């Protein structure tokens, strides 16, 4: 304890280095070699410290001026919107990432509701931040694959051993019999960021529990098989085929293709036949018994349910191939 006091006293004493203090203090303590060392150290250290301090202050002033001159104003609302978004950077909104979308929404509130993964909740939050009211945008869209042919249903002319990609395979003629159906090389699977699409036995199958409706798969499919459909019900009826071939040719290449017979259109107005292909009109979509009958009457059983709890599709009756 005494030593500490002694030490402090002498540090102060040598720092001030005043002659008056020196004479006053030297009358009762004598400097020792150890203290002389400290004195020397201090003497050589203070210019260094002072120089550094001076330099530091100089740079601080320069940076201060620069930070005022080069200030970037970031609207706090943009950050709030960014936080309200799911931050997946999926690109469903048409912007490269959530940050850019937040900025765009801030400038143009009409863009609210473009965020598919965030859905109505995110839109409501953004509207809250921007003090706006969002109208109900209707049911959320989910993808439907317009093909139901598994490997055993398809007919192949020759084996394909090229690049494992639908886009590459699609560039070749006759990779499989059907020029409209799912190729099953999984371009959609790779496009999906949410692990919601899988190739099951040669057919792209949507996992509706995981799907966020970001539309990445429908953009990735080179054959445009994946349509974004407003899911007003949990399960949606659909014509799971895209073949525009005549009925006869469709039958020749696929067991479960739409032959454009028109039986469904006779039952219900919601089915529309065009180019040898039936389509469900989702604007009018309303399930009644008529549609159920149409589904049961479909000869190739191509009208099926797709959705979270879709029932197993019916299998077409095995037709004995007499023509072959």
């Amino acid at each position, binding site marked *: 304890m005494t030593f500490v006091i002694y030490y402090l006293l002498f540090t102060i004493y040598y720092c001030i280095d005043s002659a008056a203090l020196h004479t006053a203090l030297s009358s009762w303590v004598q400097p020792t070699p150890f203290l002389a060392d400290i004195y020397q150290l201090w003497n050589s250290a203070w*210019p*260094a410290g002072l*120089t*550094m301090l001076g330099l530091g202050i100089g*740079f601080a002033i*320069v*940076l201060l001026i*620069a930070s005022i001159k080069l200030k*970037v104003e970031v609207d706090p609302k943009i950050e709030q919107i960014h936080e309200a978004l799911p931050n997946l950077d999926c690109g469903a909104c048409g912007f490269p990432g959530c940050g850019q979308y937040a900025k765009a929404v801030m400038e143009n509130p009409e863009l609210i509701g473009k965020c598919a993964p965030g859905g109505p909740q995110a839109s409501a939050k953004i509207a809250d931040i921007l003090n706006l009211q969002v109208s109900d945008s209707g049911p959320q869209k989910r993808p439907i694959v317009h093909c139901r042919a598994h490997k055993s249903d398809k007919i192949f002319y020759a084996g394909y051993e090229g690049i494992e990609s639908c886009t590459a395979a699609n560039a070749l003629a006759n990779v499989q019999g059907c020029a409209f159906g799912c190729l099953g090389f999984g371009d959609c699977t790779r496009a999906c960021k949410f692990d919601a699409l899988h190739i099951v036995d040669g057919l792209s199958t949507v996992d509706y529990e995981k799907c966020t409706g970001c539309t990445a798969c429908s953009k990735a499919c080179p054959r445009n098989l994946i349509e974004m459909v407003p899911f007003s019900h949990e399960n949606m009826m659909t014509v799971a085929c895209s073949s525009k071939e005549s009925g006869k040719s469709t039958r020749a290449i696929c067991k479960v293709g739409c032959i454009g017979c028109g039986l469904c259109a006779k039952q219900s107005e919601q089915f529309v036949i065009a180019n040898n292909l039936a389509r469900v009109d989702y604007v009018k979509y309303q399930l009644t018994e008529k549609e159920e009958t149409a589904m049961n009457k479909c000869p190739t059983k191509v009208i099926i349910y797709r959705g979270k709890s879709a029932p197993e599709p019916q299998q077409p009756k095995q037709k004995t191939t007499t023509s072959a």
Partner: protein
Amino acid sequence: MDTVTALLLAFISIVIINNLVFTKFLGICPYLGVSGRIDMAFGMGMAVTFVVTLSGTMTWMIDNWILMKLGLEVTRYVCFILVIAGAVQLVEMYVRKFFPSLYDSFGIFLPLITTNCAILGLCLFINLWEVDSLIKAVVLSFGAGIGFTMAICIMAGIRENLNLADVPDCLKGAPITLITAGLLSLAFMGFAGMIK
């Protein structure tokens, strides 16, 4: 005339013969980290050039006019780091204001210029080579930045083509990049000894 020739030689020497990346192996972190695309590599090179020119000049002035006068050579490292950090802060603010997209794509690598050893290395080299005039220090610092830009752009160009090459699985990614870097510096060894 002699000074001009000397400066020209110093410039060529620092850009090609004593290139900090290829012969001194300094600044390897951004050299490998930001050399994925040519435009980004060029942006990085420009940022480094700016920082190194500014800090090389400033450190020469501080070293010769303040530290040596006061006999404080021992604080060189601390002072140099201070200058470099200040210059990087300036560049960061500037890039953020005028090139927001470049700022986004640089990410962490922009503030990391502070710890880019090529810059501190050059500041210390200028001192080691006993550069006696301010103009020579400026030329050397600027040349070092240009040399770095050249190195990183060459690397980015190679790596862009490397993406299309059939690289064995075990060498994909960092290993092939390091091999490329080694071969590149081997090529530049051919210039060694041309000027002092």
